[in-house]
């Protein structure tokens, strides 16, 4: 044993008790200061603290299957705690011990707790009744520990009286432990010890220790006991059925031994003592293997994890959690085979077939307690090199046998060994060995002769295969790619110490893994990316598509070559990934057993496809999977692919954002219309302006009533007629400033003059008229102002103005500036073709690494181009002479439209009916919302309904009953009000329509149908049952209970409908074809096979009896009569039935042969009314499940006349 790996340490008061949680990474520690701590040792956090004991707590245990903790302390109390975080509390306290409680333990299956105490007793408690059910007396000093046997009804205890005792408690199990002592009715309270003693007896008293014994436990599987005592000795005892004896002692501790445990998996003993050591012993040889010493702290307690290679030890100032050996199995993957080491055997595992065979024993290689560290496989020679860390590092080269032989070969036979810390194959007939101490790498041939010696350029801790004739050297801060032949460094990357190196299937990419980082590099190390993890990285493997899948302590994750990474799934326990194939991860677990994990690769495949511009695959994924949540949209946006995200985002706000981002004005326009908020229009205007699409700018300005900008836009585009219309609008708005602007822009002198006149600025008006040579108007103004020419003599005369707005050279009013075609992308094409549904599944390249990896390289090379392709900001400005021609726009933008927009107050919101449709997957709710189209689709999909015509009155009445009208204000059209199912629910995301038809009301209708049957009104009954079945389609269900009732009602209605239909057919036959007695009889018989209620069944049976008796089929008639009797009818009917049976007995014959075998179960085809015996093929109505002969598949079901027989249907959803 060369390693003892500390996983976790805590500082605290003295730890006297420890217990592992069986499944979660939790450890309970009982402290000398009275506190009980619950640690998560994987995360290193204190999860909880239980502090109710007074004085030291010594005993602690966690229930093997429930979230319970038991503690025992120096306050004589035993407490049971609920450790679930949400209801953490002390459940109850067990009183009875009269001195310190030393240990406590739960029984593995009974609700028992065992405790040992300084009061010299061991007690067993029933945790259900919370009573003491047994007191084991016999020890004559403190009882230091008491443990149940892991399987049998035995207890082992250790005491200061220097003995270890084994107790038989089988009597306790046979008795009735809840009541204390049933065999002795006199005593059933705690304290009457005699009572309990009848249940348990001392089986063996093991004497041999010279001092008090501190601890004793059973071996988990063997009939062995281990004990630890103050005589510094650990003793091993063996038991048989009849006796127990001492086997051997382990000596070495030089102070009191506090505790000793059997290793749960290996033949080892772990002990600890007051000599401040933890020691590991070989159970078979009883020799010390390993000693772990602590400077100042005495050890008090040990605990072993029940399943894992994990131990905990408590000492004077805290606790440590440790494992005894590396768990990471040595393995290598070649093609479809995994070569790995388990229990010191080299094994091969076939990924395809799962065949797992042992090939080679390496038991004699290095220390027997240390597993090999690495394995390197040479397929050409079918040889392996193993390394082991014992004996300062050894390697061994051995050939594997071709086939698994009867006797597994041992490597010591022909293995070639040597010293070295790291050793790998570098070529078919060469391997390299690193000697860390001398810093020399030797290259050896297969006969183990050194052919070359290399001095590595850096301090090398480990070497890995680096591609043909190359090595990867791992040093403390860098990783070096080294060419063996030329003896020179090819490349060097900074990295924390690399511990594992994984090459992709085609050797193009390599993952360099250290404790918390992964570096993904290409094979020359010329490009690389780094991933950081906060949790320990354990292992990794390449997907054949060039995605690296890796595992950390608690996750399986993926990482793309450019560094994007994400979680695939969580892990309970670490695993070592060996191979990824499609949706399956192959791995080795902690005990080196091959396992597989299936996962969903959609997310990373999508990202990969995106990186590679593989639109077909993206389309396929979009179409077939549901991954496209916010995270993917955010990802696309962040990675600069807004135009792709745009194609599958439905939320209008997001669509708008994306459309603006990628400059897709059409979509932006469309979404802005539906959002209709000022900011949206403004942003749209901005973007459109950038792209030179002034039509959209105009629309946006109109929407926001941005008159100034609108006018300026018209000026810029030379749209004079619109400017004049703007003038009118300004006039209507009563905004003279705006009028003036528009007049100025339009070069409309008259307009300007009239504005100024209107606002009373006569001087300006006059001058304007004058300078523009409009003498007449000027005179008019003068006159209006009440002045004459003479009054304005002092006004200087200005020369006539010839300033004008620039003339329109190119009329851009009706044409947009030309812009570069946005370039139809793949999705546009697909969407235009309308075949988003039609994408072809790409041949995903698993198992064919070449194709995948070569495109992976391409993707890398292309990475930068991708960004160039889609710079949305620029494309609008790139004037391309060869681009589109100027296209005169035809759509006349009437300014009338502008005027309409001006008054715009509010756009309609989402109507309640729309909410209903959104909130419910039930057809009934869609009908109530008036969304008949979706309702019919739902019914078709859920229940296979095709003939909706019959449902029209039902649909209309449900719709009609879900809305009402009221006019609160005179003369306005009434408000359309919507009746909700639950009046107290008004949240838009939860409102649902009123349930117009309740299951109750339909069942009332069904009862009416029953009455028709009783009253022999079969035609009416048939109609009623049909109507019931229709109404059931639109019943709203709200619970599983209701759904069950619904199904029962459907079935009952179907059976009655079928029965009534059969009986009606029988009457028709009897009338129309009186000679067809056989058919008459058959139909009468089938009627009795329908599932009817007792009164109706009586009618059916009596009718059948009559018909059969008349036809002289006495035997059958008698059978029906017997069935009738079973229903316990009226005495009168009983008498008749008995007569019929008597007649049948007298004359047990049937005159007419009928096709009716009552002894074989059958269903009745609802078309032909003939039996379909069990085992014969039949198909069913997707709604009522009525049976039909297979030839009717695809026809309309005649019972309900609603469904297509045999159609696929998904059934009703359960939205509650």
């Amino acid at each position, binding site marked *: 044993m060369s390693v003892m790996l500390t996983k976790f340490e805590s500082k605290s008061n003295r730890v006297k008790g420890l217990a592992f949680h069986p499944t979660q990474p939790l450890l309970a520690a009982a402290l000398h200061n009275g506190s009980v701590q619950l640690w998560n040792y994987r995360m290193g956090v204190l999860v909880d603290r239980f502090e109710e004991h007074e004085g030291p707590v010594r005993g602690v245990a966690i229930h093997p299957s429930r979230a319970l903790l038991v503690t025992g302390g120096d306050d004589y109390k035993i407490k049971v705690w609920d450790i679930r975080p949400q209801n953490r509390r002390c459940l109850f306290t067990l009183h009875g011990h009269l001195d310190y409680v030393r240990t406590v333990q739960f029984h593995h299956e009974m609700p028992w707790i065992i405790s040992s105490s300084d009061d010299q007793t061991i007690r067993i408690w029933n945790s259900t009744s919370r009573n003491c059910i047994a007191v084991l007396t016999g020890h004559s000093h403190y009882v230091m520990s008491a443990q149940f046997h892991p399987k049998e009804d035995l207890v082992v205890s250790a005491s200061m009286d220097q003995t270890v005792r084994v107790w038989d408690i089988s009597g306790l199990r046979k008795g009735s432990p809840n009541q204390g002592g049933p065999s002795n009715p006199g005593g059933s309270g705690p304290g009457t010890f005699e009572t309990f003693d009848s249940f348990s007896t001392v089986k063996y008293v093991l004497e041999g220790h010279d001092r008090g014994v501190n601890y004793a436990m059973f071996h988990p599987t063997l009939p062995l006991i281990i004990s630890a005592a103050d005589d510094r000795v650990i003793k091993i005892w063996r038991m048989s059925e009849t006796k127990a004896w001492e086997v051997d002692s382990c000596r070495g501790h030089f102070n009191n031994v506090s505790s000793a445990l059997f290793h749960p998996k290996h033949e080892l003993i772990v002990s600890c003592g007051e000599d401040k050591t933890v020691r590991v012993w070989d159970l078979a040889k009883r020799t010390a293997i390993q000693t772990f010493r602590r400077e100042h702290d005495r050890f008090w307690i040990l605990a072993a994890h029940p399943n894992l290679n994990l131990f905990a030890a408590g000492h004077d100032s805290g606790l440590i959690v440790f494992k005894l050996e590396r768990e990471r199995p040595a393995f290598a993957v070649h093609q479809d085979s995994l070569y790995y080491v388990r229990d010191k055997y080299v094994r091969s595992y076939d990924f395809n077939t799962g065949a797992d065979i042992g090939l080679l024993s390496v038991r004699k290689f290095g220390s027997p307690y240390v597993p090999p560290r690495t394995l390197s496989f040479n397929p050409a020679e079918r040889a392996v090199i193993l390394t082991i860390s014992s004996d300062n590092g050894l390697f061994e080269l051995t050939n594997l046998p071709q086939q698994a032989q009867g006797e597994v070969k041992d490597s010591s036979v022909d293995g070639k060994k040597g010293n070295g810390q790291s050793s790998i194959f570098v070529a078919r007939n060469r391997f390299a060995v690193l000697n860390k101490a001398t810093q020399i790498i030797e290259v050896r041939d297969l006969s183990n002769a050194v052919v070359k010696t290399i001095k590595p350029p850096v301090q090398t801790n480990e070497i890995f295969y680096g591609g043909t004739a190359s090595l990867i050297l791992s040093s403390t801060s860098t990783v070096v790619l080294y060419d063996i032949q030329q003896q020179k460094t090819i490349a060097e990357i900074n990295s924390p110490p690399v511990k594992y190196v994984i090459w992709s299937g085609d050797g193009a990419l390599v993952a360099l893994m250290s404790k918390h980082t992964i570096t993904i590099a290409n094979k020359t190390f010329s490009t690389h990316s780094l991933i950081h993890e906060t949790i320990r990285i354990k292992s990794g493997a390449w997907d054949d598509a060039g995605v690296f899948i890796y595992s950390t302590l608690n996750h399986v994750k993926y990482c793309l070559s450019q560094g994007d990474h994400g979680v695939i799934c969580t892990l309970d326990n670490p695993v070592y990934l060996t191979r990824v194939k499609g949706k399956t991860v192959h791995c080795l677990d902690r005990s080196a057993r091959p396992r597989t994990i299936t996962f969903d690769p959609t997310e990373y495949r999508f990202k990969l496809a995106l990186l590679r511009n593989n639109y077909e695959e993206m389309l396929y994924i979009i179409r077939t999977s549901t991954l496209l949540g916010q995270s993917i949209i955010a990802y696309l946006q962040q990675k600069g692919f807004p135009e792709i995200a745009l194609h599958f985002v439905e939320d209008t706000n997001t669509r708008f954002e994306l459309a603006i981002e990628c400059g897709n004005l059409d979509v932006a326009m469309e979404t802005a219309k539906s959002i209709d908020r000022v900011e949206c229009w403004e942003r749209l205007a901005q973007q459109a302006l950038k792209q030179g699409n002034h039509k959209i700018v105009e629309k946006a300005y109109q929407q926001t009533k941005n008159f100034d900008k609108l006018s300026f836009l018209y000026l810029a585009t030379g749209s004079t007629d619109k400017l004049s219309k703007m003038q009118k609008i300004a006039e209507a708005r009563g905004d003279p400033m705006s009028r003036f602007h528009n007049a100025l822009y339009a070069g409309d002198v008259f307009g300007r003059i009239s504005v100024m006149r209107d606002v009373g600025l006569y001087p300006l008006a006059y001058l304007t008229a004058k300078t523009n040579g409009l003498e007449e108007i000027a005179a008019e103004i003068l006159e209006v102002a009440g002045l004459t020419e003479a009054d304005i003599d002092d006004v200087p005369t200005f020369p006539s103005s010839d300033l004008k707005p620039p003339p329109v050279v190119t009329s851009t009013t009706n044409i947009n500036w030309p812009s570069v075609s946005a370039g139809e992308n793949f999705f546009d094409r697909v969407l235009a073709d309308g075949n988003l549904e039609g994408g072809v599944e790409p041949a995903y390249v698993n198992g064919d690494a070449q194709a995948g990896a070569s495109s992976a390289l391409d993707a890398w090379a292309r990475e930068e181009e991708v960004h160039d392709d889609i710079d949305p900001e620029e494309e609008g400005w790139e004037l391309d002479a060869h681009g589109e021609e100027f296209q005169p726009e035809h759509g006349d933008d009437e300014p009338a439209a502008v005027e309409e927009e001006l*008054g715009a*107050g*509010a*756009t*309609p*919101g*989402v*109507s*309640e009916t729309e909410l209903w449709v959104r909130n419910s997957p039930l057809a009934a709710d869609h009908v109530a919302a*008036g969304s*008949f*189209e979706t*309702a*019919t689709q739902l019914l078709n999909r859920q229940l296979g309904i*095709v*003939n*909706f*015509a019959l449902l*029209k009155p039902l*649909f*209309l009445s*449900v*719709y*009609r*009953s*879900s*809305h*009402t*009208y*009221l*006019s*609160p*204000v*005179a*003369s*306005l*059209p*009434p*408000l*359309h*009000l919507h*009746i*909700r*199912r*639950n*009046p*107290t*629910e*008004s949240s838009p995301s939860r*409102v649902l329509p*009123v349930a*117009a038809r309740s299951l109750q009301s339909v069942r009332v209708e069904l009862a009416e149908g029953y009455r028709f049957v009783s009253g022999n009104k079969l035609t009416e009954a048939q109609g009623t049952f049909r109507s019931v079945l229709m109404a059931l389609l639109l019943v709203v269900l709200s619970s599983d209970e209701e759904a069950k009732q619904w199904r029962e009602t459907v079935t009952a209605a179907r059976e009655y409908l079928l029965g009534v239909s059969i009986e009606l057919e029988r009457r028709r036959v009897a009338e129309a074809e009186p000679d067809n007695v056989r058919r008459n009889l058959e139909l009468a018989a089938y009627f009795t096979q329908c599932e009817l209620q007792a009164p109706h069944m009586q009618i059916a049976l009596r009718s059948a009896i009559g018909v059969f008796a008349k036809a002289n089929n006495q035997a059958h008639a008698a059978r029906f009569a017997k069935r009738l009797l079973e229903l316990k009818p009226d005495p009168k009917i009983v008498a008749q039935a008995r007569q019929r049976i008597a007649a049948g007995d007298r004359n047990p014959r049937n005159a007419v042969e009928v096709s009716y075998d009552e002894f074989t179960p059958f269903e009745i085809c609802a078309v032909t009314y003939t039996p379909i015996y069990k085992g014969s093929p039949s198909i069913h109505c997707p709604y009522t499940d009525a049976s*039909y002969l297979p030839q*009717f598949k695809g*026809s*309309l*079901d*005649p019972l309900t*006349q609603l469904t297509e*027989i045999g159609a696929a249907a998904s059934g009703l959803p359960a939205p509650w």
Partner: protein
Amino acid sequence: MDSSELYHVKQQFILGAFKTLVNLTLPDPNSSDYTPTLLYQARAHIALNDPQSALQLIPTGSENVAVKAVASLARYIAASETDQESSLEELRDLAVEIEGDDVEGDDRDRALVRVLAGTAFARAGEVEEALETLGVDTEDLEAVAIIVQIYLSINRPDLAKKQFERSKRWAEDDLLLQLIESTIGLVTGKDAYANTSSFYTEQLGNPSLTSPHVLTARGVTRILRNEISEAKSDLEESLEQQTADAETLAALVVAAGLGALKKVDTDELWARLATEHPTHPLVIDMASKAELFDECVGKFAVPPLAG
């Protein structure tokens, strides 16, 4: 400040007691209450869908803008679809006219013109024009009531609430404000329609007026509260007082469909509504839904019947 008679008239108008208003004897033509009362009476006629009576009531040749507006509204409602435009134009002109100074009528009349024009525009489906005319910043409660109802009809209860909140600041505890609040409650269903329900229940207890309309309104509220049998009794009581009221009848049909009545009786009631009030929105809506249904059904191919 209104005289108590006028106040009462107004209250009756708000609560839909149109029948009572129609039968009211007008005050002395010289009293200041005359014109307002006349206007309410005319509007009550219009509300009862009897614009002819309203037109007869209105003195021809009056220059009062409000009177003119009522006449226009009456003509608009009386007109067949093709002739409505001219009445709308009249109202548009009036709405522009009241902006000027030289019109006959006080502020109240001007507000009423807007209310009436807004009503007509809303009826014509010109939502934006109606809102524009009424002015979303108006301080006339009647206008607010219409604005609120318009907002509600286009599923914008948020805007409706804003209007209400805004009005609360200056309208205090006016009856009409309470009605507005209750109307918003009808649509949003806040607190299980508690507000609406108690408003109408309170008004039913108002001793100074009886209006079957309030009964109907409470009946409708009760339907919304899923209190079907209570709703039925309200509606039936209301129907006794106003046998031919389409709204009550329509509501009763709905209550019946939700289990208040047997299917046969429901169908009979529905048939009655459909024949007597072919223009009621429920009837029209159902006709369109029937068409929609046929359209949807056509999308499924029905296979031949088995056998």
